[in-house]
């Protein structure tokens, strides 16, 4: 990354770094405690993909929408979702963001425009598109961002949704987090080549591929897309090329499974977007070691508090199992 950071406000750069670091640390902490079997929920870590959630969401306002997936911790936090309620959800507590009904794959925080994530791969794509439709119909000034990965790109729902978004010029941004894997299956085993939506005519839907491990690249691409959406000019498509460094689900590396090489994983771990950005910030004097140290401590404190909050929170009562079936 040889980009010139000078043109960006200091505050923005600090925020980008802080948010990435925080998402990274939260997930490492979850990972470190997962073996205790107290978080009785599947987890899908987005370690190594922090730049995408953060680079995108830094362009969004509180009332903008995002749509997310099973691998959604990063999106939730980047959009401003409450950390305590995230951890409480992992601990299956009544104080969780989904009141212990959803678990790690089903996060929600409507106060920041996170309207719920689907664990059906591709399931969130039409819903995010529909949020764009609502925005347009209500003549609101909102953007709807849809995060999805290469597995979801296999699904016809993507084709159908993009067609509709272009047709209606919806304020939707398709953020294709191409981390190259769906469980153990490499994208090349499932897709015939580069995703075809890059070929969409520019005026209908500008499309580009960026380095998903560079928060500034993601930020810049999203900035254009958000501008376009706010100007009511229609949807955009951004492919963020990245890699899933952890196993598909659960804690730790899945190196031993042998479906990909240890070197490949190492290579991509070396491209850690958080560390990469910290190096630039240090190099360019945007931050110094002490400041980063303080950030780390702040985050650690917040994480400890969130876990304590979660662990001490009440569990849903069995007799409430039928609650929330219907809304009055």
């Amino acid at each position: 990354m040889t980009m010139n950071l000078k043109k960006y406000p200091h505050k923005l750069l600090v925020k980008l770094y802080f948010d990435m670091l925080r998402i990274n640390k939260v997930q490492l902490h979850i990972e470190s405690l997962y073996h205790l079997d107290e978080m009785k929920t599947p987890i899908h870590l987005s370690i190594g993909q922090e730049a995408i959630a953060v680079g995108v969401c830094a362009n969004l306002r509180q009332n903008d929408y995002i749509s997310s997936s099973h691998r959604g911790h990063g999106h939730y936090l980047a959009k401003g979702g409450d950390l305590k309620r995230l951890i409480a959800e992992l601990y299956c507590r009544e104080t969780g963001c989904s009141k212990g009904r959803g678990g790690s794959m089903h996060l929600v925080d409507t106060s920041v425009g996170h309207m719920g994530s689907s664990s059906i791969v591709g399931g969130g794509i039409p819903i995010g598109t529909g949020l764009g439709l609502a925005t347009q119909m209500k003549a609101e000034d909102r953007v709807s961002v849809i995060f999805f990965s290469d597995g979801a790109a296999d699904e016809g729902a993507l084709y159908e949704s993009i067609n509709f978004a272009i047709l209606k010029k919806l304020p939707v941004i398709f953020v294709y987090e191409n981390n190259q894997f769906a469980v153990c299956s490499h994208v090349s085993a499932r897709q015939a080549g580069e995703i075809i939506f890059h070929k969409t005519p520019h005026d209908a839907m500008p499309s580009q591929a960026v380095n998903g491990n560079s928060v500034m690249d993601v930020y810049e691409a999203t900035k254009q897309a958000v501008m376009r959406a706010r100007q009511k000019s229609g949807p955009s498509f951004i492919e963020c090329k990245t890699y899933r460094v952890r196993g598909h689900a659960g804690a730790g590396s899945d190196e031993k499974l042998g479906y990909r090489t240890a070197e490949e994983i190492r290579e991509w771990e070396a491209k850690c977007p958080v560390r990469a950005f910290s190096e630039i910030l240090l190099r360019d004097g945007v931050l110094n070691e002490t400041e980063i140290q303080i950030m780390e401590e702040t985050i650690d404190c917040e994480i400890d508090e969130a876990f304590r909050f979660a662990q001490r929170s009440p569990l849903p009562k069995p007799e409430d199992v039928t609650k929330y079936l219907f809304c009055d």
Partner: protein
Amino acid sequence: MPWTKIKSDVNEPNYYLESDENIRRLSYSEAIREAMDQALELDQRVFIMGQGVDDPGAMFGTTLNLHKKYGSQRVFDTPLAENALTGIATGAAIGGMRPVYFHNRPDFLFLAMDQLVNHASKWYYMFGGAVNVPIVLWACIGRGWGSAAQHSQALQGLFMHIPGLKLIMPSTCYDAKGLMLSAIADNNPVLIIEHRLNFRHKGFVPETPYRVPIGKGIIRKQGKDITFVAISHMVTEAYKAAEELSKEGIEAEVIDLRTLRPLDEEIILRSVSKTGRLLIADCGWKTGGITAEISALVAEKGFEFLKAPIRRVACQDVPTPSGYTLEEAFYVGSNDILNAAREILQIR
């Protein structure tokens, strides 16, 4: 093709009023159209989508010219992409709108099952009440003229199994309007399944907007000897059969469930407690269909009332054949109800 031009010149059975010639009658499709018109008028959040809602066919006339009155932003045609469009409707509902998504036939809902069942129906529960999904899906069962296996499925048996989804099947013009208005006002996903044969009818429909409560059945004919439970156009068939039996001095009680989920258990159990005999009539397949659930309900909670086996009158368990000689054998109607009732009552 005759089935494309169903004439609504038959009055529905006269359930409501003894002999008032001056009541306001609308055709079934006019009743629904009036509901849509009023809903669009009264609530800016309501909009209509679906293949052909703005075309001259206009979903059997139910959406006719509404795009002209309310604009093509609020009444719009959709691509044939039932899964994404259901998700888009769901997203729009989450974003504060109240979409009504029309389908010609329930068969096409198979393409939309992921969004309808995995998403819309679960969203409220899955997020602990944080987000609700006020969408209405509407579909009209095909029948006859060789509609065949992929264009005539009556899928209430499937949808009745889905928690989080309300399921409505009206049988009268009055209810078609009132239940549509309730469905639109409801804060949950609601599926309305209509039946083409209902569209032959004209019936009493007040002009002012009104709501028929979801989850409440109604007795269409009082009786003490046997209970007929039915939905949609099978109510008409059951009523015909009941009138026939009446002539023989046997009084069948005819229950129009109107809603299948939530189910009005009480109205069924109360009736069976009186009659001791139960016949359930459906226009869908028998095995695993709605007749099964209603029977099981009574075998569980009303067993002590039962004096005879519970009989189910429903379609043959095969894909719908196209040929008319086979259609005759596939579908059931008042005659089948009559025969089954006689068996239960052990007459002839």
